[in-house]
């Protein structure tokens, strides 16, 4: 489920109406590289991520994109709010006005309505996350184009901020991609049960268990498994020894 927080993630307070800019900006609402496409892309792809890292990251970034939809929508709303009909016609927004008056509607900068054809799901985590990385880069480029098109600091501020978020998101997706690439190299799109348990128990973070296997560590491990209702010690231990060199170095 989702909870609404009655505030913007980053403040938007545009004092000067600018219909021309509203017309361009709408592409980050309903365009192919926009925030709505981003939110739906990640929140849709997260179901088939192979482990908790991917499920968490796509959920959390997808949720943040919804906050960005709200920011972009707020910017468009504030840029259009005080416009007269005459100004709307002069700015070429009369075609928008005919259908929507001053209401928001997700389209690209040319008025093409939003479509889910802007994103894909393949069920293959590497393919899906590659798309996510590309999406963040394309959105960054679009934000730069939009910044070039205005000189209003009230508009530039939030656009610079949103551009920076694309860079952070891109980095996190890239890190996840590299992690999965290493882990999924055997050609499976799903992690085994042992892989997932290993991940849960932070085992890839532990020192080499073969050489450091002490009674204390053993007790700790058993306590932990008990607390997690996981009783099949032998299964996990076998898995740990088998994968030792790859994951416990």
């Amino acid at each position, binding site marked *: 489920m989702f909870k609404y927080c009655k505030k913007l993630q980053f*403040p938007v307070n545009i004092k000067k109406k600018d219909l021309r800019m509203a017309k361009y900006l709408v592409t980050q609402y309903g365009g192919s590289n926009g925030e709505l496409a981003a939110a739906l892309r990640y929140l849709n792809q997260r179901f088939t991520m192979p482990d908790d890292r991917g499920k968490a990251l796509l959920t*959390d970034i997808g949720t943040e994109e919804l906050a960005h939809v709200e920011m972009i929508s*707020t910017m468009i709303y504030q840029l259009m709010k005080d416009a007269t009909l005459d100004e709307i016609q002069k700015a070429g927004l009369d075609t928008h006005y005919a259908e929507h008056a001053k209401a928001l509607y997700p389209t690209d900068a040319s008025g093409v309505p939003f479509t889910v054809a802007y994103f894909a799901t393949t069920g293959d985590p590497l393919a899906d996350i590659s798309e996510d990385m590309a999406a963040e880069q394309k959105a960054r480029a679009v934000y*730069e184009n939009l910044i070039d098109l205005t000189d209003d600091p009230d508009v*530039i501020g939030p656009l610079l901020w949103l*551009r920076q978020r694309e*860079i*952070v998101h891109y980095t996190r997706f890239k*890190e996840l991609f590299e992690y999965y690439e290493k882990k999924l190299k055997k050609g499976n799109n799903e992690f085994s049960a042992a892989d997932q348990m290993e991940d849960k128990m932070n085992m890839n973070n532990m020192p080499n268990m073969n050489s450091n296997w002490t009674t204390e*560590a053993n007790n700790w491990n058993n306590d932990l498994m008990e607390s997690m209702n996981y009783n099949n010690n032998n299964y996990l231990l076998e898995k740990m020894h088998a994968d030792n060199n790859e994951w416990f170095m």
Partner: protein
Amino acid sequence: MNRYNYFNNNWVRNMQTNNFVKPNQSLYSPKEAFEKGNLFADLYSQYKNYKPITLKANTEREKMLLELSQIAFAAHELNLYLDVYPNDSSMIALFNDYRDRANQLEKNYEQKYGPLTVDSENQETNYFAWESGSWPWERDFNV
């Protein structure tokens, strides 16, 4: 206190090699990170000569909201980081610190200016406080 940290045993914590942790993360302060839109100094990339805007709070309400947004943003940045690096104990500690502070700041703000979430504890008014006041897109309190 409920911490998202499973290594409550220091001996185990010290034994960690943290080999899936990025070393030497240099972090901005929550205030600077919020203005930049990026907590991680090594990820920050400036566009042309544009500098981030400086956010100034003019009223007590703006000040409290800005501070909440700053700390909540820092916690959110660490949240995304920890999604990928769930074993980084120093970042978990920092996340917990920012999370605690953000929750406290949210509570303080709500006590004075009304609920930010509908399930907020600060709803004990004789009117339905959730729908009163303006909504984020029409705020003049947006700093």
